[in-house]
């Protein structure tokens, strides 16, 4: 059984090869047939199974029933049940958040969506999420802007540039980043990485400081949004890389050869064949990363300094702040009255909705532009014009 294309593994022992029938004709599969036969045949036939049995004995009535095997019904119930449980859990989380948030929101004396004040306790509670929303979103978006190009680069390097003996370790190293707990990222970011970033922060702010977003208050505070963004970027790098890598590797060889046969260099081949094919996958990977960055708690809490004062609002990315998650985690000790708790839960609800919207957007983009999903629709249109012109 030597193959003409030379894929035969070397060092196979000489002599008669084991026949596949010998291996299959063991008790394993036969037992499975027994089980089937027992369910459908009641006359105690032990071997052969239904197919062979009916072939052997043509006078016997074919065993075509009864409908609905026990295992099938069990599995169907299990599958339906699991689906229902997931939907129930999501619904319960939503109901819980709403039920606890609504009373607090009703007592709120300031605009919940547009106020930046956070004083939920007392006789006249006033709280709004504008500052939290801004900090959460900008830190995550900057993280994505940093992480996605690097992830695409790593994914392309692993799939189309590196020799296999380098590509595999690099891929594993990136995957390993995902296994680091976020508390470790927090400690590492706050104690080791943030001081290293200081020159970068100072350089950027002195070059671009005339734009309010890059304006920096005097001092050497490194527990700022920018630092958080860089650490978040490292944290979401593995997931974005892994998905991009998968989708790039799936680019059909015919597309790649089509480009190469036209005299494309490797980069031109990537641009003509690989990137268009993988675009939707990269978008959905980025959205998944964004979703993770939005909800990240511990690392943000440790790194980001909380500004003092009544309205310590600073739009700069070189200032401290609080995200939804870090605000809630920082103040977990304050959940002493339903009003206060309700305020924090309302903030959590907004985070829930934002993350949900991001994930939905990702799904929508993927469904719209997946290589498989887009073309049939266009095909139909092209086919229609073809039919009309013919």
């Amino acid at each position, binding site marked *: 059984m*030597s*193959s*003409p*294309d*030379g894929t*035969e593994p070397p060092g196979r022992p000489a002599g008669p090869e084991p026949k596949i029938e010998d291996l299959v004709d063991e008790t394993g599969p036969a037992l499975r047939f027994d089980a089937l036969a027992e369910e459908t045949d009641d006359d105690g036939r032990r071997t052969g199974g239904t197919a062979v049995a009916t072939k052997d004995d043509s006078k016997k009535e074919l065993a075509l029933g009864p409908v609905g095997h026990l295992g099938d019904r069990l599995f169907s119930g299990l599958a339906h049940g699991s689906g229902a449980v997931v939907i129930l859990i999501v619904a319960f989380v939503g109901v819980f958040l709403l039920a606890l948030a609504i009373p607090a929101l009703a007592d709120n004396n300031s605009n919940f969506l547009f106020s930046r004040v956070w004083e939920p306790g007392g006789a006249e509670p006033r709280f709004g999420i504008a500052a939290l929303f801004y900090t959460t979103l900008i830190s995550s978006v900057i993280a994505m802007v940093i992480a996605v190009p690097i992830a695409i680069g790593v994914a392309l390097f692993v799939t189309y540039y590196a020799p296999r003996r380098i590509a595999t370790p690099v891929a594993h190293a990136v995957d390993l980043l995902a296994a680091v707990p976020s508390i470790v990222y927090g400690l590492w970011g706050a104690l080791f990485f943030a001081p290293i970033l200081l020159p970068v922060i100072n350089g950027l702010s002195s070059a671009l400081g005339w734009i309010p977003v890059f304006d920096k208050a005097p001092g050497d505070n490194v527990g700022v949004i920018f630092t958080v963004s860089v650490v978040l970027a490292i944290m979401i790098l593995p997931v974005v890389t892994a998905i991009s890598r998968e989708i790039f590797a799936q680019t*059909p*060889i*015919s*597309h*790649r*050869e*089509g*480009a*190469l*046969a*036209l*005299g*494309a*260099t490797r980069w*031109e081949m990537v641009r*003509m*064949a690989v990137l*268009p*094919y993988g675009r939707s996958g990269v978008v959905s990977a980025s959205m998944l990363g964004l979703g993770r960055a939005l909800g990240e708690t511990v690392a943000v809490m440790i790194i980001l300094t909380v500004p003092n004062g009544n309205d310590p609002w600073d739009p700069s990315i070189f200032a401290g702040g609080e995200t939804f998650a870090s605000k809630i985690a920082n103040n977990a000790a304050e959940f002493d009255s339903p009003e206060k708790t309700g305020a924090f839960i309302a903030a959590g609800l907004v985070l829930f909705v934002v993350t949900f919207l991001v994930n939905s957007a990702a799904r929508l983009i993927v469904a719209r532009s997946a*290589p498989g999903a887009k*073309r049939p629709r*266009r*095909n139909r*249109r*092209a*086919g229609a*014009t*073809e039919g009309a*012109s013919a």
Partner: protein
Amino acid sequence: MAKRIEVSGLNVYYGDFKAVEDVSMTIEPRSVTAFIGPSGCGKSTYLRTLNRMHEVIPGARVEGKVLLDQQDLYATGVDPVAVRRVVGMVFQRPNPFPTMSIFDNVASGLKLNGVKDRKKLTQVVEESLQGANLWNEVKDRLDKPGAGLSGGQQQRLCIARAIAVEPEVILMDEPCSALDPISTLAIEDLIEKLKDRFTVVIVTHNMQQAARVSDQTAFFNLAATGKPGRLIEMGPTKQIFSNPTEKATEDYITGRFG
């Protein structure tokens, strides 16, 4: 526009496995040469060595010489990318770029060569589509995706894409094996037309096709399974199909193979 290919003593390896052994042949300019032979005899592998496309496959390497008008394609300092711009290729399955329009598919090779002038692009796209007998069918929908065409139209689109860069040689690896008989006929007519401008080399499993379109036919075969493929016989198509020198060739073309 068309050049002579001279191959001498060519061996192709996949890793340690020798896939093709000691092939020497001359392919005349402005002619159609067909490669026939059983599956796995190395004719597609050999075809790919004529524009170094085999290098896409990890571990594939070549010994010997392939001269294109006296220039060795395997000499040091020869860029495979440049080779492929001179020796174009059409594949078994039509492979237009799915995200590109018909126009962009044909223009893609030119854009690789740095042609940006819209007027020039439009002109070459029209000429190439006419050269591929496709212009009349697509001229009203050049901005539609190439993947929306029928299989036969897609294959002619791929041929248009290949000839748009004005190569010297066009290699075709079983270009009709995924097509219906009508589309196959369209491609065969096109090959007849292409040989006025290009050197065409075609691999085919269809012996009637080889007999219909080619001037020269080369028969490849394996000595035995696991052994490398060899060129058994090459000559004018008429002679190969009516009066072959080798017994193996006669057995193959009369269906008495094996």
